[in-house]
């Protein structure tokens, strides 16, 4: 029967191709003057494509800074995008094809929340270090040795928002979240921490994205008389909703998740509310510090240097908390490679905490170039990144304080206060 011949043909092709590929395995050769690949496993298209843009916005500057300082052990770093399309069914063959064809793969930025459960085991057994952005709380107690997470879990951001609202004296909260997966992922953390901190949820509204109007939802929110609105949704939806909210006279202070402090959302809501109301009423909770430390300065210089390659508008990545986190992740990996004098992932993976976590006698560095020079001089280093202190715990998580910021007219963050990691951890919230 013809059917049986087809899988045989497929298998034959596979064997022929794998024979060709035998010379180049995924373990990594090291020849000076060559290149090393960093893969971005993230949604580059589809409804979550902004995640891909956030990532690229931070990785290009990282690679630029690393290569400018001479690269890693003589090799330059190169970016390769691996599109998950935001779902695990597409992510799996994409990642496997990458593993099969990328001979000099050293690290992965990602995987994203939606594909993590499927992809983390694959990358872990292929021994590729991942600087993941998976927000699920199940990774709070991660045991995969190649998994590293610099992002706070989704629940932590929600808890920070609620702590901030409580600090401001608000008790009546309206939750306005889009039904897209990114927003829904952050919602349980908000709702649960509200319960734990005894704030009252007066309205709980889910917005289907990209509708022409949300008037009835707006009216529901107004009728519930909230003191503050906690929100995340995509930019278009937010613009339409908050514009109609203001026009119908129901504008109250808004507290947004970290995902709201990105250029598309800020631009949409600023346009909808008008600049003065936007500056007055919006607060976002983000992980990156708004103060300009030397690390932040170096990051912003790197962004400016690669502005031609960045997705438009390039200025938005100067203070994009996601991009900054990706930058720090890649710099940490590069420093680990230099410190262990190897580009083989199975060798340098365990060196990652040694270049980032605080410790006795360590010299604090703020850029890759500084770190490389210090290591060459025989010192131990602690990389304090653009996101601040990095301290990986035994589950390979590092999340620091969060900061409440308002946005300037130029969309730069202006600090309003800090919510510390200890305060966040003290709130009893079950996994989201």
């Amino acid at each position, binding site marked *: *029967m*013809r*059917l*049986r011949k*087809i*899988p045989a043909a*497929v*298998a034959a*092709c*596979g064997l022929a*191709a*794998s024979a060709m*590929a035998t010379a180049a*395995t*995924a373990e990594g050769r090291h020849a000076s003057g060559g290149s090393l690949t960093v893969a971005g496993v993230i949604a*580059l*298209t*589809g*409804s979550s*494509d902004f995640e*891909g843009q956030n990532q*690229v916005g931070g990785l290009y500057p990282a690679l630029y800074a690393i290569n400018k300082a001479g690269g890693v052990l003589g090799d330059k770093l190169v970016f*390769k*995008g691996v*599109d998950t*399309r*935001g*779902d*695990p*069914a*597409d992510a*799996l*063959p*994409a990642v*496997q*094809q*990458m*593993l*099969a*064809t990328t001979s000099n793969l050293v690290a992965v930025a990602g995987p994203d929340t*939606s*594909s993590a*459960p*499927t992809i983390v085991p*694959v990358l872990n*057994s*292929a021994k590729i270090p991942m600087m993941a952005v998976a927000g*699920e*709380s*199940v990774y709070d107690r991660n045991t995969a040795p190649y998994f590293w997470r610099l992002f706070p879990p989704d629940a932590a951001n929600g808890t920070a928002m609620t702590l901030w609202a409580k600090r401001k004296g608000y008790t009546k909260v309206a939750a306005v979240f889009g*039904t897209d*997966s990114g927003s*829904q*992922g952050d919602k349980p953390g908000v709702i*649960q921490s509200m319960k734990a901190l005894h704030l009252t949820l007066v309205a709980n509204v*889910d917005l*289907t994205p990209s509708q022409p109007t949300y008037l009835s939802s707006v009216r529901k929110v107004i009728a519930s008389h909230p003191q503050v609105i906690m929100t995340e949704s995509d930019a278009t939806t937010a613009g339409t909703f908050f514009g109609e909210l203001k026009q119908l006279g129901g504008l109250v202070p808004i507290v947004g998740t970290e995902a709201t402090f990105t250029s598309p959302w800020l631009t949409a809501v600023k346009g909808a509310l008008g600049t003065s109301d936007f500056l007055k009423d919006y607060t976002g909770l983000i992980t990156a510090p708004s103060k300009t430390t030397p690390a932040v300065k170096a990051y912003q210089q790197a962004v400016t240097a690669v502005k031609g390659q960045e997705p438009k508008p390039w200025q938005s990545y100067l203070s994009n908390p996601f991009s900054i986190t990706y930058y720090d992740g890649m710099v940490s990996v590069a420093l680990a490679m230099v410190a262990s004098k190897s580009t083989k992932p199975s060798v340098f993976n365990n060196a990652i905490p040694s270049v980032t976590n605080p410790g006795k006698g360590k010299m604090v560095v703020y850029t890759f170039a500084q770190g490389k020079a210090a290591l060459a001089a025989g010192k131990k280093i602690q990389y304090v990144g653009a996101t601040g202190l990095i301290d990986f715990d035994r589950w390979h998580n590092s999340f620091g304080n969060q900061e409440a910021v308002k946005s300037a007219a130029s969309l730069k963050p202006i600090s309003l206060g800090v919510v510390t990691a200890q305060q966040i951890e003290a709130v009893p919230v*079950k*996994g*989201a």
Partner: protein
Amino acid sequence: MTAWSYYIATLTVYFGVDVLAALSVNLQFGFAGVVNFGFIVFQSVGAYIAAVVVLGPSSGTFQQYVFGARLPFGVALLLATAAGAVLSLAVGLFSLRNIRSDYQAAILLIISLIATQVVQGYVPLFNGSNGITGVPRPFGSLPLSLQGYEWAYAGWVLLFCAVAYALVTWLSRSPWGRALRAMRDQEDAAAALGLNVTALRLQVFVIGGAIAGLSGGLLVEYIGAWSPDAWGYAETFVIFTSIFVGGVGNYRGAVLGVLLVPIVFLELPRFLPQVGYPGLMDSMEWIAIGAIWMLCLYVRPQGILPERRNRARRASGKAAIPAEPAEQMEPA
């Protein structure tokens, strides 16, 4: 070497699942003239049901879903197939009527949009937009290496394909199959001869739906996760394009089409150098799918491998695609 092996194994599993999908769609469209543009919903219900019965009860915090019965995998696959059949029975009773086929296609497409909205909106059902994750793999405790497991699963899926292929081929050669073709080609005459056209259509729809549900169950047990992003209405187009390319109304053509379109054509761009900004290549891929679709409709609507019977029809100058019986009877 190993990395290639995993990749090819995954592609083989996807190939098998898509073959089941194409058989389902072709059974409904090629043989009964039912345009199931909502196909993905039936695959999806199979996937969701398989996932939620295999998992333990929902804790409500990590993810919310119904059922959660921790049943064995074989039972889960059976339930997935049954779910596909039951849902297509419900949808079929409601929407399979003697209406013009563009309306019918639109109805089934809209039903898939409604399903997406309902699942995303009502979170306690299948965890909304985030979907269900953590579905354990069948027979994970067998003494197989990781690699061996992948190929064993691929073989398992291909086994189902072979069974389904044999089933639909046998069905179409049977008197039942002949009745189907009569209904497709000359519906009024068939009804006049006493064939219960409505019942026939419903039967085809349900069998196709069962196969679709099975394909969903097999897929979710391999990937371990399932979310609305994985079953947009565009997935149905890929299957339809496969049939158009490979050959409408015959199953060898369906298999060929699945090999060419989702496997070869959609995987090929990964091997090309990345042009432009990240994500540009993917947009181009979809544009290309649309273009292939339109090209096939224009140049060779019957596909590469035509249905055997069509040779006689083409000789007499009639269209090879099942056409509206009404138009055939009106003067051109």
